[in-house]
């Protein structure tokens, strides 16, 4: 019994230390964003020798949103003779195919790829098939619910003038913020995550993440990696680490803002975050050892990489921490390190949100010039509990995948937009 109590106390100590690490990380990022030197991407460069770019839009039953993304891409100021748009119809059984064929008949540079029949469904499979037919050396990917501004392709692609750049990532902004409480909270979470977290990681030459949409990469690089790994649900995080391990880097372009549709129901959000967690933890199991052994990353890039890889595991560890605390409390052994206790609670409090703590969101709001919406911040306590549960389930899924060699199936996020056009 004594050994068990000792182990439970050690676990509490470990958990507090880990939370403290993440809090320090978020503080450093937030401080850097408001007081540190800001690093620019290559969007200030004007160059009329632009490379040929292939734009992929993975689609599965996207009739509600297909028109919007295609119209936005047709409006791009990128030279049309230097681009092709490849919407990937991945086993849709709604009107998606008809919509794509209609656009293809009007615009020669829209070349739909229909994936039907027995071909396996899922984003990595779809992207791998599209890579086989793409003509561009640079690939840009948008999810079907995105609406890029007309100068965005140029802003993303220009970053590849630097031969060290393996991938580029823009900023995601929800378009349906006013819809309900969830979308308003997701809007704040996205702001903290992109405006502060991603930009600070880019400023500090750490590991800004390629997010799988509003972003691009070099085709030759991904072909060298053997394409996208269909066993991994988070193909974006997988690619981020492959890029850094191969001695390339990711550029984050805060200015390349793009609207997306955030989930409008808690059940859809739950499935989304559980899928993200499952995929991210798959990447953790896959890349943690290569990351530690790599000679291509600096010490601080490794530290950031480790913290980034473990971020979707932390909620599960915290859930265990709550259970640990309960056992210790009822066994009268809660006196662990009294002098640090108050500090530990503050640390724990600060971690609300986990992916974007309140001070990070506050600074993002300041940089975006908004104020009143920040009053919603206390409600992140409930988001934290929500994320804690579904992220933990995602971790358990990933662990089960690893142990049983189970293959994950791709589930798309439900769309909510009312199709008002065409």
């Amino acid at each position, binding site marked *: 019994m004594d050994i068990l109590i000792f182990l439970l106390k050690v676990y509490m100590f470990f958990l507090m230390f880990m939370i403290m690490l993440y809090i320090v990380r978020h503080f450093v990022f937030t401080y850097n964003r408001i007081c540190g030197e800001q690093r*620019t991407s290559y969007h200030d460069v*004007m160059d009329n020798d632009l490379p040929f770019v292939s734009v992929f839009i993975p689609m599965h039953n996207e009739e509600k949103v297909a028109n919007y993304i295609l119209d936005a891409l047709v409006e791009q100021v990128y030279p049309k003779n230097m681009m092709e748009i490849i919407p990937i119809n991945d086993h849709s059984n709604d009107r998606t195919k008809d919509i794509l064929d209609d656009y293809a008949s009007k615009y020669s540079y829209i070349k739909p790829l229909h994936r039907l029949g027995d071909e396996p469904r899922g984003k990595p499979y779809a992207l791998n098939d599209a890579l086989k037919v793409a003509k561009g050396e640079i690939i840009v990917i948008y999810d079907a619910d995105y609406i890029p*501004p007309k100068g965005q392709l140029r802003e993303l692609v220009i970053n590849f003038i*630097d031969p*060290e750049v393996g991938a580029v990532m823009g900023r995601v902004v929800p378009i349906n*913020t006013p819809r309900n409480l969830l979308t308003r909270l997701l809007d704040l979470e996205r*702001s903290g995550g992109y405006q502060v977290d991603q930009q600070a990681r880019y400023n500090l030459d750490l590991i800004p993440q390629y997010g799988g949409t509003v972003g691009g990469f070099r085709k030759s690089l991904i072909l060298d990696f053997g394409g996208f790994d269909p066993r991994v649900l988070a193909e974006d995080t997988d690619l981020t680490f492959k890029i850094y391990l191969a001695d390339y880097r990711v550029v984050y372009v805060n200015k390349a803002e793009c609207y997306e549709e955030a989930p409008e129901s808690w059940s859809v959000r739950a499935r989304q975050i559980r899928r993200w967690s499952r995929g991210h933890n798959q990447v953790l199991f896959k890349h943690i050892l290569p990351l530690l052994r790599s000679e291509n990353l600096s010490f601080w890039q490794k530290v950031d990489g480790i913290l980034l890889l473990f971020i979707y595991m932390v909620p599960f560890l915290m859930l265990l921490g709550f259970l640990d605390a309960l056992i210790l409390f009822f066994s009268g052994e809660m006196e662990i390190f009294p002098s640090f206790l108050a500090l530990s609670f503050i640390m724990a409090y600060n971690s609300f949100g986990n992916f974007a703590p309140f001070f990070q969101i506050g600074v993002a709001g300041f940089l975006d010039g908004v104020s*009143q919406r920040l009053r*919603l911040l206390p409600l992140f306590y409930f988001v934290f509990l929500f994320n804690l549960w579904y992220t933990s389930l995602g971790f358990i899924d990933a662990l089960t995948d690893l142990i049983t060699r189970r293959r994950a199936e791709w589930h798309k996020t439900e769309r909510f937009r009312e199709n008002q056009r065409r």
Partner: protein
Amino acid sequence: MAQDREIQGESATMTVLEVMLIFILLLIAPFSFALIEYYRKKDAQQLDINQNYSKDPAYFGNSFMKLLNKSLEHVAERKEGLMEIEISSKKKERLLFFSKGSIIGKDYGDYIVVIDGYSKIEEGDKFISRKEVISFGNLIIRIHTKVRALLVKGGLRVEKPLEITRWMHVEGDCYIMNNSDLGINCYCKGMLYIKAGCSFKRIFAKSIIVGMKREEETLHNDPVYIKGTLRSKEGLNLKVYGRETIIEGNVISDGDIIVEGSVWIKGNIVSNNCVTLMRGCVVGEYGKIKSVVGKKGVKIVSNAKIYGYIHTDGEGVIEV
């Protein structure tokens, strides 16, 4: 005694209740603000993204010209003198019209100055306007001039110091013969010749020629070719005299970049610090747009030629 103990007990109970009440109030307080905002929705709209945004160096001049033309559509006849028109829906602006000829330099305050044809600003001590100055023809500046913005539909020749606070837009060629501040954004559709010291933030022109002649690049002495991009984390110092060096690619560094002498870079130059171009180097090619971007500063000393765009968030200096 018993009564005292009862009073003490009551007081202790009160204290515990008070503390609990304060605790609950403090616990609820932040949520109350959140709930107020949730129901009142004072700030519930999505963040604004300009869906029409694309990088355009002529943006300032073109959008101002669009507004002005729209306003002037309603003017039956342009007469020399003062006129009040609505430039935007927000407020009325006072325009001062001049027909072509000689413009007297003085303080025009908050008037937008519109010059209808080929003109010279040449009399008086100083020409000042806290608003935009628009010339529909060629313009020659022969006295010290300080304006918020300058839009010239023809060519421009600057013979005395010119100070621009915001932007400058020239649709013909532009000659700057005296020390000038080119403001935050300088756009020249034709060629921009600079033969004196200047400060700037962003310059765009078909070709930006500093202290050199107009002729196109000619190769002498069996040049050295470097194909591909030069990339360095620490900084780059390309100093070449004698045999010419042609770099067919970009030059990129996280540190300073110094290019001096007979170097022709056909791509872009990008630094997260400062860029210095000296004594005869060329960036870009005729008919193409290439960029020189130095985040903390760009310095051009004596002769240099850039086809396209120069950008800095720091200090841009041209020393001839």
